[in-house]
C-alpha cells in the first residue's frame, strides 16, 4: 500500500466520521456505556477482594511448644519460620508473656485470675505466625513438623479452629474474582457486538460508495481503510469519554465505598492506575473498532 493511499484513506475515514455525526455519537455512547459498566464491575470486584483479603490478613496461626522447651531452641525455630518467603511475621511468645497477655485479656474476671494464682502458669510458649498468603499455612506447618524442631511442637490451632475460616474466605475471594471476570467478559462481548453492528450500519450507508469504488478499480485496502479509521476513532473517543465520566463517578461514590471498605481508597488506587487503565481501554477500543470494521466490510468487498 502506498503512502498516498494510506493518507487518503485516513483522511476519508476522518471525514466519514464527522459526516456521520449522529451515527458516530450513537455508536460511541453505547461503547462508553459498556466500558463504564466494565469499569464499575472492575472497581466493585477490587473493593470486595481487598476487603476480604484484609479480613484474611488478620487471621493468624499459633504453634504451641511443649512446656519444657528451652528459649534457644524456640528462638531457632522462630528464625527458621521467619526465613520462609510467605511468612509476613512470626513472633515468639514466651510462657511469661503469654501469662501477661492472658491476664490483660481477663483482668475483669476474678474467678480466672484467682485460679491462675493457684495453678501457677499453665500456659505454653508459642509462636504466632502471620502470612502474606493464607493458603500457605498448611505448607508451613508441615515444614515445621517435619523439621528437627518438630518434636518441640505440642499443638497447632490451625487444624481445629482456623482452617475452615481461612479456606472459606479463600473460596469467597476466588468466587468474587471469578464473577467479576465473567461479568467483564460478558460486557466486553456486548461491546464487541454493539460496535460491530454500528459499523455494519455505517457500512450499509456506504454500500453505494463501495460499489462505485469497486467499479473504478479500487483495491480492497483502498476501500477498507476509511472504515477501519472510522472504527478506530469510535474506540478512541469512547475510551476517553468513559474514563472521564468514570473518575467523577468514583469520586462521588467514595463515601459509600469507604463505609464498606475503610482501608481501601478506590479513587486513589484508580488515580495511580490511570495511565494503565487508559492505555488498556484505548488499545481495546481501537483494536475492537478496527477489527469490527474489517469483518463488517468483508460482505461488501466480494466481487
Amino acid at each position: 500500500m502506498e503512502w498516498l493511499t494510506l493518507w487518503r484513506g485516513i483522511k476519508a475515514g476522518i471525514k466519514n466520521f464527522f459526516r456521520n455525526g449522529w451515527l458516530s455519537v450513537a455508536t460511541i455512547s453505547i461503547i462508553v456505556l459498556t466500558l463504564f459498566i466494565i469499569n464499575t464491575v472492575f472497581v466493585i470486584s477490587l473493593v470486595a477482594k481487598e476487603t476480604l483479603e484484609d479480613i484474611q490478613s488478620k487471621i493468624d496461626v499459633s504453634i504451641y511448644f511443649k512446656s519444657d522447651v528451652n528459649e534457644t531452641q524456640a528462638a531457632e525455630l522462630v528464625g527458621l519460620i521467619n526465613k520462609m518467603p510467605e511468612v509476613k511475621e512470626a513472633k515468639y511468645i514466651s510462657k511469661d508473656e503469654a501469662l501477661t497477655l492472658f491476664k490483660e485479656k481477663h483482668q475483669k474476671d476474678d474467678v480466672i485470675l484467682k485460679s491462675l494464682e493457684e495453678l501457677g502458669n499453665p500456659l505454653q510458649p508459642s509462636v504466632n505466625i502471620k502470612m502474606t498468603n493464607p493458603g500457605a499455612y498448611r505448607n508451613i506447618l508441615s515444614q515445621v513438623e517435619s523439621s528437627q524442631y518438630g518434636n518441640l511442637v505440642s499443638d497447632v490451632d490451625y487444624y481445629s479452629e482456623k482452617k475452615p475460616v481461612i479456606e472459606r474466605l479463600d473460596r469467597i475471594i476466588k468466587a468474587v474474582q471469578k464473577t467479576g471476570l465473567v461479568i467483564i467478559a460478558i460486557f466486553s462481548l456486548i461491546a464487541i457486538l454493539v460496535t460491530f453492528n454500528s459499523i455494519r450500519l455505517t457500512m450499509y450507508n456506504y454500500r453505494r460508495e463501495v460499489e462505485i469504488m469497486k467499479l473504478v478499480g479500487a483495491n480492497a485496502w483502498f476501500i477498507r481503510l476509511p472504515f477501519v479509521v472510522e472504527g478506530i476513532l469510535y474506540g478512541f473517543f469512547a475510551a476517553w469519554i468513559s474514563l472521564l465520566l468514570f473518575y467523577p463517578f468514583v469520586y462521588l461514590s467514595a463515601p459509600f465505598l469507604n463505609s464498606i471498605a475503610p482501608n481501601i481508597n478506590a479513587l486513589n488506587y484508580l488515580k495511580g492506575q490511570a495511565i494503565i487503565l487508559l492505555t488498556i481501554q484505548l488499545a481495546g477500543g481501537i483494536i475492537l473498532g478496527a477489527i469490527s470494521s474489517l469483518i463488517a466490510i468483508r460482505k461488501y468487498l466480494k466481487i
Partner: protein
Amino acid sequence: MIHFRNVSKIYSGDVVALRNINLDIQHGEFVSIVGQSGTGKSTLLRLLILEEKPSAGKIFFREKDLTSLGHREIPLHRRRIGVVFQDFKLLNKRTVFENTSFALEVAGRSSRDIRRNVSQILEIVGLAGKSDKYPTQLSGGEQQRVAIARALVHHPELLVADEPTGNLDMINTWEIMELLLRINKLGTTVILATHNKETVDRINRRVIALDKGIVIRDQQEGKYMI
C-alpha cells in the same frame, strides 16, 4: 481487443442469461448491443468488467484471459475500463470534481495529476463551469456527463455503457450519444448496451442483436432489428 469464446452464463436455478456467445471486438470500434430487456445485454457487460464470471467459456481482453484473473488483478483490470450506467451511480455528497477525481484517487495518482486530468475531462464533457456543483443540482443529462467524465478520466482503452440514455429525454439522449461518438473518435473503444432503436439506427455503426442469450445478428453499419 476483446474476444468471447463459447461463453455461457447460467445463474442459479437454471436461468440462462447467455448461451454460447462468440464475439470479436476490435480496438477503436463502436459497438451497440441491442435486444429486449432480459436478453443478456447487461450480463455481457458485467462479464467484461468482471462483476460476474462466466459459467463456461473464456473471455480475452488484450490477449489476457479474464476468467483466470486473481483477486488482486481484478481492480487493475477495471482501471483499464470505464463504465457508465443508466442510473449514473454518482455520489450525491460529493461535488462533480470529487465524483470525477474518485477514479484517479483509486489508482493512487498525485493530487496535481488529478486536478489537471479532471479539468481536462470536464471540459470535454461540457461541464467545465460546474465542478463545484453537487449531482442533485444538475439535470439528468448533466449527471450522466459526470458519470462519463468519471469513466474516462483515467484514459481507459474501453468504455462500457449500459443503457446510458435510459433515463434521459430525446435531446439529452442525443447529446450523450454525440459525446460517446466523439470519445470513440478520440480512440476509445465503446460498447453500448441499449434498446433505444432511434439512436442505434441513426449512428450507423456495428450492431449486435441478442435474443434469449443468443447472438441472432451481428452487422457492421447495422440497424436495430430483433
